[in-house]
């Protein structure tokens, strides 16, 4: 269900002239882009470029200083409770470190959105929880507490919780960071499978190159100095053809700490 060309259906997420920051500190200025149905869009960039700030603005945790974010036509900072609830029902967010509720078991954590938004019988909820757990490779951990699981496992439970309602839009903050390489790849494949099977629109914040090339249909690259987007498009195309040295260096793993015109491998910087 991968979109053939992005423009053939109306976008799911529209970011219009977004300016974000904290107080007087502007991190992103006048950023605009769209995410189309069934697309996996990766937001990338070096440390401190505002990836997480952008993500928090996209999901409505922070209020933008200017501009707006629409998901399915609804402003994420809307004051209409019904509209917002409908929006939350259709949006899942997997946080960087899981953000599990420490006092609830794993099963209760995943069942929470199911209990809130559906009227399913307990038995069905239990089965759905087990299904989600088996999807992230953690079958059997139903009754454990988050504190009893490793960091990577907690993160995967967070992913399972974000997918509990099979939302139409899912946000992932660094899904494979801090996981062992095998589990990281498995998660990437799971993300791809879910996207392909249910046409879920996904926005992923990551800087793992392998992950980007595996899952991304399209990327948006942010830069700290520019306070905005410096590249967008297919990551494979950008790797080969970008003329911007910052973009080229990122995709070709070139260090950018200042050294004359040459990097430490003796190659000339573009």
């Amino acid at each position, binding site marked *: *269900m991968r979109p053939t060309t992005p423009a053939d259906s*109306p976008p*799911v997420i529209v970011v219009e002239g977004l300016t974000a920051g904290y107080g007087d500190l502007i991190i992103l200025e006048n950023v605009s882009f769209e995410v189309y*149905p069934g697309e996996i869009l990766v937001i990338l960039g070096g440390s401190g470029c505002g990836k997480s700030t952008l993500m928090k603005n996209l999901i409505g945790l922070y209020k933008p200083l200017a501009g707006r974010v629409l998901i*399915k*036509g*609804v402003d994420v900072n809307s004051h209409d409770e019904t*509209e917002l609830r*409908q929006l939350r*029902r*259709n949006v899942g967010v997997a946080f960087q470190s899981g953000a599990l509720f*420490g*006092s609830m*078991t794993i*099963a209760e954590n995943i069942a929470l959105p199911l209990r809130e938004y*559906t009227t*399913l*019988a307990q038995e*069905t909820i239990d*089965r*759905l929880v*087990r*299904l*989600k*757990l*088996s*999807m992230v490779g953690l*079958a*059997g*951990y*139903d*009754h*454990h*507490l*988050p*504190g009893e699981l490793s960091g990577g496992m907690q993160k995967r439970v967070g992913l399972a919780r974000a*997918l509990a*309602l*099979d939302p*139409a839009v899912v946000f992932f903050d660094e899904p494979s960071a801090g996981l062992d390489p095998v589990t990281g790849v498995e998660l990437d494949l*799971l993300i791809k*499978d*879910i996207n*392909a*099977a*249910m*046409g879920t*629109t996904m926005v992923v914040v990551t800087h793992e190159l392998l992950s980007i090339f595996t899952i991304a249909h399209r990327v948006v690259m942010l830069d700290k100095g520019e306070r905005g987007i410096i590249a967008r498009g297919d990551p494979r195309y950008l790797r080969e053809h970008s003329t911007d040295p910052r973009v080229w260096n990122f995709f070709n793993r070139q260090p950018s700490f200042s050294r004359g015109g040459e990097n430490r491998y003796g190659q000339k910087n573009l």
Partner: protein
Amino acid sequence: MALADNMTKTPADAAHCSVVAEGEQGREITLRLAGRISLDNRHLLAAKIKALLRHYAPHRLTVDLGGIEFLDSAGALLLVELEEVARTASLPCDFVRLSEASRRLLNLIDRQALAAPPLKALAPPGFLDQVGQITRTILHDFFALISFAGELLRALVQAFLHPQRVRWQYVLFYMKRVGVDALPILGMMSLLLGLVMAFMSSLQLKQLGATVFVSSLVAIAMVKELGPLLTAILVAGRSGSAFAAEIGTMMVNEEVDALVVMGFNPMHFLAAPKVLAAMVVVPLLSAYAILIGILGGIIVGVTLLDLTLFTYVNETRKAIDLFDLISSLFKSLVFAIIIAAVGCQRGFQVKGGAEAVGAFTTSAVVTGIFLIIVVDALFAIALHYIG
């Protein structure tokens, strides 16, 4: 666009799925599923399928998935369940005309994992288990407190032997936090306490014509008991809890582990400055509370009881002696150690997450106040015999 978008799942979706059975009763039938099968309408579909199977009681089942427009994982689970039902009834069951998307989704479902029991049973502990666990916790708590007291004592002795190694800037910081910042609220409370005590006692003493004793009553009560006690309870609530929460959060964030591996002694680094700061400022706070309390008494005495300022102060001076004051400030010093030590110790006990921080913060205040009352009683008995 907006919410009418075809990807939005609402209960109205119920109308967007259908199941039709074709075939003969008792023979082979085909179930044709169509539309959107999702979390919101799977229960309707499940009921319909169940009714159809009961009605037709087929020998062979073919499920045609060609008409499915959208299937989410809850819908896919329904198909897996249908397959299971068929298998238990030893009914041959085939899925035909799967779309690529549906096939991928069904492949994601690990049937073995669904059937496997959880690794850990969720059994509430029995009565004996609970008694045993509580006993163990209490004993463990007791030993932990003793060993903490020992370590703290060692850290304090070291601080006195090598004062240059104490992190004095933190001691000053906590002196401000525990002491200076508490002045307004403590002043307010002591003043009101002094006022109320003087006023209430004057109502009784007036009948005996002994209003002049209001001053000694307020003085003795504030100096011997209420001043140090009020201060200690306030500091336990304000600062004991803050110490526990601060160290507890550091435990959760592995900051304490980081200190250990960098060669710092957490007791020295985190607990000692807090305890030292409390030891300095809590007796001072007590003296302040006593003074303000007596001031409250003076206000009532001078304005309502026709006592002169000179008489009131003179009576107050006669009622208490230096020994009372010094023993009371020493008591405050002991309270300070208890509050700060319990706060830090509870903080170091935190394991797990946010909930544990809350539990141990509560425990820091409760244990702190409990120990203060016990020690206060011991002091009352000891001072009775010494004085």
